């Protein structure tokens, strides 16, 4: 392909002190794609995102955005290059109003008319935020805070949006609603996204391509249709099980991945 990928990660390794959280991860996101990274608790998904967005400095490997090496750059530089991280657990600014939170999302931008247009765009996708624009963000419900976090991320007009567990702690109905909006944003606004999730079913339903992470490594990579069809994924992430000998088989299969 002619165009360089939006994000190109090669052999990334990150540590928490002596603990190796990411053990050589390579992945790629192309423009317009919605790529998901699946994995259980502690697989290193969040660490991966933190390393990409510059909050953590990786020990080894490279992170390239449109071919430009941004490994170890400061977070604000990375946001200016078009990567915005929507963190897990809706890290909003609790004492500021919804509107001020959204305005902070556009911190790195200067064109006021474009910012105003994008704010209207965010409000059109999340009408509840428009309704509550003068409310303190900390008083919103969990789902609304998640919407606010996504809306705030959109305000940076990102080349690539890193979404960390948008389904965390939300009811199935809300998860559905938020993922519908995520998918619409990807298709209608052309926002390239990298979606990190534990909820494989809903993530695979919206994604084009998927990676599976276990204990700091990528163990599978394929189109989401193929992943959803694969036996391992069905068994371990989608909860489809055949009756016989599940426990024994689990061990064996997992071992072959490492």
């Amino acid at each position, binding site marked *: 392909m002619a165009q360089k990928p939006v994000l190109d990660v090669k052999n990334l390794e990150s540590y928490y002190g002596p603990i190796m959280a990411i053990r050589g991860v390579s992945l790629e996101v192309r423009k317009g794609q919605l790529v998901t990274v699946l994995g259980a608790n502690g697989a290193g998904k969040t660490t991966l995102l933190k390393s990409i*967005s*510059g*909050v953590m400095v990786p020990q080894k490997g490279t992170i390239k955005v449109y071919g430009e090496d941004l490994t170890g750059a*400061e*977070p*604000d530089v*990375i*946001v*200016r290059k078009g990567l*915005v*991280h*929507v*963190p897990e657990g809706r*890290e*909003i*600014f*609790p*004492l*500021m109003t919804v509107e*001020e939170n959204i*305005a*902070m*999302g556009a*911190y*790195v931008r200067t064109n006021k008319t474009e910012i105003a247009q994008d704010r209207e765009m965010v409000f059109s996708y999340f009408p509840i935020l428009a309704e509550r624009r003068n409310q303190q963000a*900390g008083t919103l419900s969990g789902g609304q805070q998640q919407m606010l976090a996504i809306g*705030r*991320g959109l305000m*940076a007009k990102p080349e690539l949006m890193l979404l960390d567990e948008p389904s965390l702690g939300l009811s199935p109905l809300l998860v559905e609603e938020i993922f519908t909006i995520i998918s619409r944003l990807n298709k209608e606004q052309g926002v390239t996204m990298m979606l990190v999730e534990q909820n494989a079913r809903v993530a695979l339903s919206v994604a084009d391509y998927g990676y599976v992470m276990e204990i700091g490594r990528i163990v599978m990579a394929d189109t989401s249709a193929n992943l959803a069809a694969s036996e391992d994924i069905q068994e371990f992430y989608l909860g489809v099980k055949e009756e016989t000998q599940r426990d024994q088989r689990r061990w064996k299969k997992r071992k072959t991945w490492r």
Partner: protein
Amino acid sequence: MDVLQLVISGLANGCVYGLIALGFVMIYKATEAVNFAQGDFMMFGAFITIWLTNTDFVGLPFWLSVILAILIMGVFGYLMERIIIRRMFGQSQIAVVILTIAIGFILRFLAGAIWGHDPLSLESPFAGKEVRFGGLVLGADEVAIILVTLLLTGSLFVFFAKTKLGLAMQAASQNQLAAYYMGIPVKRVHGLIWGLSGMVSAIAGILFAAKGAIDPSAGLLGIKAFAAAVIGGFGSLPGVLIGGLIIGLTEPFASRYIAAGYSQIAPYTILLLVLVFRPAGLFAQMQKKKV
């Protein structure tokens, strides 16, 4: 009339405490660190102004040297963060507290070494002048202090509530990680906050020196300002100013009506009462760090 005179001089003192306390609170809100050298910043700002203004030293016009001193202290605060405090990033708060106490000591001795330990007073255009207001005779310096403080607090309030940089400073204090994710250059914002608080402390110092003599140990009244900040709740800017006014008003009345040995403890008695009955301060942002 007597009581009113006390009230005015108490308010003027309280404004100076309030301004120093504002410096405390701005830094605390944005960076979670307490700068115990804030009083010494104030003293240093005052001495720089005296040095620039007084005819014994450089002898610049008053307003020019005021502006220069404010700028110098702004740069001083910024560099303090940039060169020293930033290296403490991620260390415990206690380490930063001890460091700033040490910086306070250094500033105090530095000022003593440069300008001597004798009290100096600022040759300001307000010195000795009076403003007649109805039947009242007020010192022009005291009126100026009160007006400047109100103006400054008002503009800081607007700055934090309305401007992009002000909002970013608030954002960085409410959720540092999220501020990073939004591309707010958190470290630079911290430096700017220290610069801003250096400027505010310079203004406090100028007002203090215009009101009476100042010597290098004047920075110790930062402790009273700290009490003011705690009474005000260490969160809201107007609250902190009111905390300063409460301390300022208590002093003249206490020294007038209470026996000499006890009057000095009056401000701290109030601090104690506030801590017992409203531990979060009078105007606390209650939900501050919960989320």
